[in-house]
């Protein structure tokens, strides 16, 4: 459920400091239309009249007749993570259009999907096309942190609410906390941020470690930036448990041969490899299963979250445990399975975690816009800060402006009881059922769908 993932210009196009400041988002009252006008003025002042014009719904007062939702997804046509974002946005828009309650003043809620190609420069280009050309009233999506971090300034400049549904880097929320007026338009609807992902791994070990027989673990973390906050949280909290850390290895990025690493795990005598893997995940799982290494395997393994991963690896991921936002087997709220089935019906397959989160983000935004009777971003920011929305992944609440993780979704620290506020990720295990793989839920117990199965060779 994770991925790998201040301008102080002296002036603007015409050298005007005032407009330059507006560009830089220093004026919190500046809305998107004014930004375009400012750019036009900049052009005009240099002798060029400038063609002004907002998108189809550039009005920011009330609910316009056509509401545009901008979606940024990596290769939505073939990447399952991007497809889940795009398809869930379409599904949410359809449900809003069919609803009598949500955004009823609008004749149509339209979704515009753009491909970030997982590139910061493309992501910036597409984001600007969505907000400047198409007049998107909110934007959502973004999977990689590399793209999100480079969108923080454009989001601040456009002053349009953006709800992230894939990237986990806490650097984004740190920017919101440190410069609230500028970056307040950013919210992370999910997943929980990188530090809380690590905290959740420890909480899982506390709740289920003895049941699984994981009295000692070997911590294996791939050396990428995204694992830094995860590993910090584990290091901060794992000492409080009655679990022995037999070995801790931050192995090199790009590692393909896990033989020597697994030899060390065996020598350490650990019951399980407790992992944080994304880029290097597939060779790690395949070699573990192929060589039938005598230890169990679990933690955060991003690729095993994909519903198609069992067939992609020829069943090698069987018996592995990973954190996830939700699965088609986890009834976290009364909306979870309804959404998963509606998605399956529309797309002939179940969504990846980014789908649940994107659906929640758009529905929460629509609820807040309906309550406030406006799509004005400043009003929506206040609304989202006060909102507690029950979505498919749990209760969607955000940390306040003074919290160090400002505008990140709240993590539920009481990990084995249904949360009143915040979300509680699930831990799934790939199990075999009639020759095909199923993502059975082990934890939390209130959504558990199966008992843990240890690999037969251990």
């Amino acid at each position: 459920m994770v991925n790998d993932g201040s301008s102080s210009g002296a002036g603007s196009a015409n050298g005007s400091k005032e407009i330059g400041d507006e560009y830089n988002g220093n004026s919190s009252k500046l809305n998107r239309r004014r930004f375009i006008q400012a750019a036009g003025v900049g052009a005009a002042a240099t002798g060029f009249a400038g063609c002004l014009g907002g998108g189809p719904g550039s009005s920011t007062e009330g609910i316009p007749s056509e509401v545009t939702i901008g979606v940024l997804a990596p290769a939505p046509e073939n990447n399952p993570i991007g497809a889940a974002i795009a398809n869930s946005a379409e599904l949410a828009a359809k449900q809003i259009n069919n609803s009598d309650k949500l955004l009823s003043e609008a004749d149509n809620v339209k979704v515009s999907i753009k491909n970030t190609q997982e590139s910061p420069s493309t992501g910036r280009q597409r984001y600007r096309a969505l907000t400047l050309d198409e007049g998107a009233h909110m934007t959502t999506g973004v999977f990689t942190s590399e793209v999100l971090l480079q969108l923080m300034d454009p989001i601040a400049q456009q002053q349009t609410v953006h709800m992230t549904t894939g990237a986990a880097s806490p650097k984004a929320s740190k920017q919101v906390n440190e410069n609230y007026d500028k970056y307040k338009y950013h919210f992370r609807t999910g997943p929980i941020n990188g530090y809380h992902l690590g905290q959740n791994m420890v909480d899982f070990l506390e709740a289920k470690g003895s049941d699984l027989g994981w009295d000692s673990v070997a911590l294996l973390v791939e050396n990428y930036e995204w694992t830094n906050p995860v590993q910090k949280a584990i290091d901060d909290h794992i000492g409080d448990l009655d679990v022995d850390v037999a070995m801790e290895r931050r192995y090199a990025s790009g590692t393909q041969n896990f033989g020597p690493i697994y030899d060390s795990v065996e020598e350490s005598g650990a019951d399980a490899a407790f992992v944080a893997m994304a880029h290097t995940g597939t060779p790690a799982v395949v070699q573990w299963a192929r060589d039938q290494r005598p230890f169990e395997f679990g933690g955060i393994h991003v690729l095993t979250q994909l519903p198609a991963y069992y067939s992609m690896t020829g069943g090698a991921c069987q018996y592995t445990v990973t954190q996830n936002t939700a699965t088609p087997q986890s009834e976290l709220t009364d909306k979870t399975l309804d959404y998963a089935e509606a998605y399956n019906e529309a797309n002939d397959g179940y969504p990846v975690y980014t789908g649940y989160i994107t659906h929640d983000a758009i529905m929460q935004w629509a609820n807040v816009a309906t309550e406030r009777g406006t799509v004005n971003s400043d009003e929506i920011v206040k609304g989202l800060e006060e909102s507690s929305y029950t979505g498919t992944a749990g209760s969607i609440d955000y940390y306040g402006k003074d919290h160090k993780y400002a505008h990140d979704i709240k993590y539920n620290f009481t990990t084995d009881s249904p949360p009143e506020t915040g979300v509680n990720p699930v831990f799934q295990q790939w199990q075999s059922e009639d020759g095909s793989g199923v993502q059975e839920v082990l934890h939390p117990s209130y959504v558990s769908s199966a008992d843990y199965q240890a690999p037969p060779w251990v």
Partner: protein
Amino acid sequence: MTDNSQSRLRLLLGKLNPLGLPLRQKIGVFGLAFLIALPLLVSLPVVGQFVVMILPASSWQLGLYNVAAALFFAMFAMSWDAVSGYTGEISFGHGLFFAVGGYTSALLNMGHGLSPWISILGGVLLAALAGVMIGVPALRIEGPYLSLVTLVAPLILLQVFIFMSDIFGGEQGLSNPDNLIGLGFVSNYFLALGLFLAIFALLWALTRSNTGSILTAIREDEDAVSAAGLSKAKFKIFAFVLSGAIGGLAGAVYVHTPVGSPTPSELMSVIINVEVIIAAVLGGMGTIVGAALGGLFVAMLPDYLNLVEFTVPVLGKSISEMSFFLFAIVTLFLLNIFPGGVLRWGIALGRRATGRDGSGEEGMAADGGQSPEDAGTNPVAQTMERYQEYYDNMFGGDDE
């Protein structure tokens, strides 16, 4: 004023008169004038709408941003061409210089509070130093061996960035440093265009000087250069330092604009390293002009393809969905049709059309001395010939 000085003035004015220029240069001047006038043209009532239609975006604002980004990419391609196009030492990892320039400037700006105007200088200096670090090994190893060094260098740098991610931000890159001149669409466009023209003028003048001739001679026959009593080592290092400094300058300014940022994907990814080579070879290796044109084309083609909503009937996929695939196909096609580069082909075509195809007179190509139609002596063919020699030696080929 004497008759002599008057005739000099007339000569100078004659040279500056665009109407007196050769056709290819007239086209170049027209293209340049179009780029300079672009922000004005988009604001005109009727003409503006037509001009926006030919921009790689759906509005003039984003069009200017996208052209600015393409201008930076063209600068990257020109910096590659200055060393690899002229000396024939192919660099597979020019992103090293863009990244050193961009990251140095961003870190000096964000970490030490230096103004971007000063931090960019720091980026240029370190990139020039990186040019020395690659140039010095070039004295001992050549051809495919040196190419391997250039291939590995940015990979090592990326690993350093990941290993020391607390400083360099690892695979996620750094956040946005201060912008040099704010966020204006027009001002940033002119910043990119100004830098593009300055780099173009510098490299064009240098490669048409004696230094350029020596660099070309290194590509054609290193032994002949040594036999003439010239230090090929000195000129090779000069070429790498020059190219590194210019690539570093472009990378450093790029990260201080709204169209760029200090991230591995934008400055040093394998895709960037390869696209820079494709751009220069496609445009015309060893010409600077060709690298500039190729850079603009390679950067803007995907943007154009992304605007096409047409759905291919049998596949059921839209052109924009397949943009990267189509970009690769078009590029491969063009490279096959024009192995010497589109520029050389265009010049040769122009000469045939105007009846100045060189029969009975010496044809001067854009690179200052080669016949455009002599495919055997175009830089790509020469470089391949050099590499073939190295491979023959490597695998024990017959020495004749």
